[in-house]
């Protein structure tokens, strides 16, 4: 709208800002061919019975029926739901509490920030392997508590199929809460100092000010954080591979791992395509309402 070249009034639309168009060609090619072409290709081939190689013989919803009949997929979905909901709640709560503590004009703020955030610089593979070691029942937490005298103490989340997903959650939270803390802190610093003064004058206790004034004001930050964590959760893969490889049995399978295994190991491409299409659908459910809100408002503003 505010592009200065618009005023030049050259008649031919195609050659207007030609340099700009040339500069954007690689980006446009990648976005259309890889991102959208690739996505559509995968969705289309999820309706075929491709196995070792992609084949264009369509079988309708067969792959999806098979997918939802597979107990391994159901376990994956359940795990993702548990991990997703809990990690959203815990990372928002822990991240916000840490940020609120950091916002109390403390000493050594940058030291604390460094400590809370450094795990975020590490890969999920590194994170997963460290926590695999700490949760090792022989040498890790369980072993130490037992050696202190509690012989019957049991804490082996990575070896117990019922709670293995919580073991993965511990590592995931360790890696990711620093980022949430950082975003929340930025949000808190964006809030006017006068709000706090006004609340103090009115005699409102601090926790109530946070709960009823500050948090509602930070809505945009919360939403952005939610979208970032949410679309990251759906891709959860490395952490599981590093910590448990999906075990014990199939107990810690997740959708992203299901996709990889069927595409590149079980040579059952159709299943892999169908499962990845379901992942796409999940992300769309998270992102589309957000994009609508963000860009609806952005265009109007």
């Amino acid at each position, binding site marked *: 709208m*505010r592009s200065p070249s618009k005023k030049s009034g050259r008649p031919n639309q195609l050659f207007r*800002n030609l*340099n*700009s168009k040339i500069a*954007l060609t*690689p*980006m446009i090619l*990648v*976005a259309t061919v*890889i*991102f*959208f*072409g*690739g*996505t559509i290709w*995968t969705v289309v081939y999820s309706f075929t019975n491709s196995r070792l190689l992609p084949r264009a013989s369509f079988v309708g919803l067969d792959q999806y029926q098979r997918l939802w009949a597979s107990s391994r997929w159901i376990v994956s979905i359940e795990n993702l739901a548990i991990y997703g909901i809990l990690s959203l709640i815990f990372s928002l709560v822990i991240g916000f509490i840490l940020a609120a503590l950091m916002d*109390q*004009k*403390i*000493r050594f703020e*940058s030291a*604390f*920030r460094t400590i809370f*955030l*450094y795990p*975020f610089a*590490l*890969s*999920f*593979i*590194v994170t997963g*392997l*460290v926590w*695999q*070691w700490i949760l090792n029942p022989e*040498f890790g937490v369980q072993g130490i508590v037992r050696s202190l005298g509690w012989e019957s103490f049991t804490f082996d989340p990575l070896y117990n199929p019922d709670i293995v997903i919580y073991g993965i959650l511990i590592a995931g939270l360790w890696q990711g809460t620093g*980022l949430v803390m950082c*975003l929340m802190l*930025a*949000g808190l*610093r*964006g809030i*006017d100092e006068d709000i706090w003064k006004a609340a103090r004058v009115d005699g409102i206790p601090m926790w109530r000010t946070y709960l009823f004034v500050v948090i509602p*004001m930070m809505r*945009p*930050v919360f939403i*952005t954080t939610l979208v970032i964590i949410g679309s990251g959760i*759906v*891709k959860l*893969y*490395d952490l599981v*591979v*590093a910590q448990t490889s999906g075990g014990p049995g199939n107990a810690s399978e997740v959708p992203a791992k299901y*996709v*990889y295994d069927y595409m590149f190991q079980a040579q059952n491409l159709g299943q892999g*395509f169908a499962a990845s*299409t379901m992942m*796409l659908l999940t992300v769309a459910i998270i*992102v589309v309402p957000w*994009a609508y809100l963000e860009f609806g408002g952005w265009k109007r503003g």
Partner: protein
Amino acid sequence: MADISALNTTAMGRNAPAIRNEAPGRALSGPRGKRPKRVLSRRNIVLYGLLGLAALYYLLPLYVMVVTSLKGMPEIRLGNIFSPPMQITFQPWLKAWAEACTGLNCDGLSRGFGNSVRILVPSVIVSIAVASVSGYALANWRFKGSELFFSVLIVGAFIPYQVMIYPIVIILREIGIYGSLTGLVVVHTIFGMPILTLLFRNYFAGLPEELFKAARIDGAGFWQIYGRIMLPMSLPIFVVAIIIQVTGIWNDFLFGVVFTRPDTYPMTVQLNNIVNSVQGVKEYNVNMAATLLTGAVPLIVYFVSGRLFVRGIAAGAVKG
């Protein structure tokens, strides 16, 4: 309650842009205002107690990694993971670097390190070069449809990689670079571009428009303005982009595992293979040394760039 909500909306209007653009910078300015006078008040004890506990929890894994990697195997079998090493040995580090087996090769992580560097350098350079020009074009040289393209780009950045992986495998195979380092460089470049383009576009859009107009009047063209005016002014955003790309590409596992073969494995894939190999005695000290070696590069980037790293995530994440 009525006046609170009124306060709320007006403050929102004023603060919404501040949260996006200024807050990350202000978040770094450290403590503000007067320092509390009594140091040992009950409030302070609770405050620092909580922060200290949290800090312990976050530091523990790093401590365990370091301690374990300096122990010999007999000591590991005896003691617990938190006890400090009685005899410090660097043998596990040497073994992890030069001798540990990853599948067929037994030359340790050194090969993976070399591969990761050879993947990292070109992908970072190419993706940032393309993205900065694209961001500049989107911010300053809009044309019909460029806004639409920009929105499409944002949506595209959220599509799960899994949906696009197989078509890319086919494309790379057709070109003949599947399994090679070049193939992985191409993949990283492609997937790094949307988020970086958004970053650069927002940065360039925030620069004073008068600069751009003045240059136009002086007769400077597309590339001249980019090279002479925009580039020299955008060092901060370049640093941020480099940090995001270096840590992101170095830490990648999924693309590494899909698009490489054993002799082109990046470090993360090798690390996972060393630690999760089924055969033989588990050498936990070597494993932890290998883990630290793999984490070293992003950790160094993080500790050296400190504040910029924070700004980088805030900028990349808040706007992403």
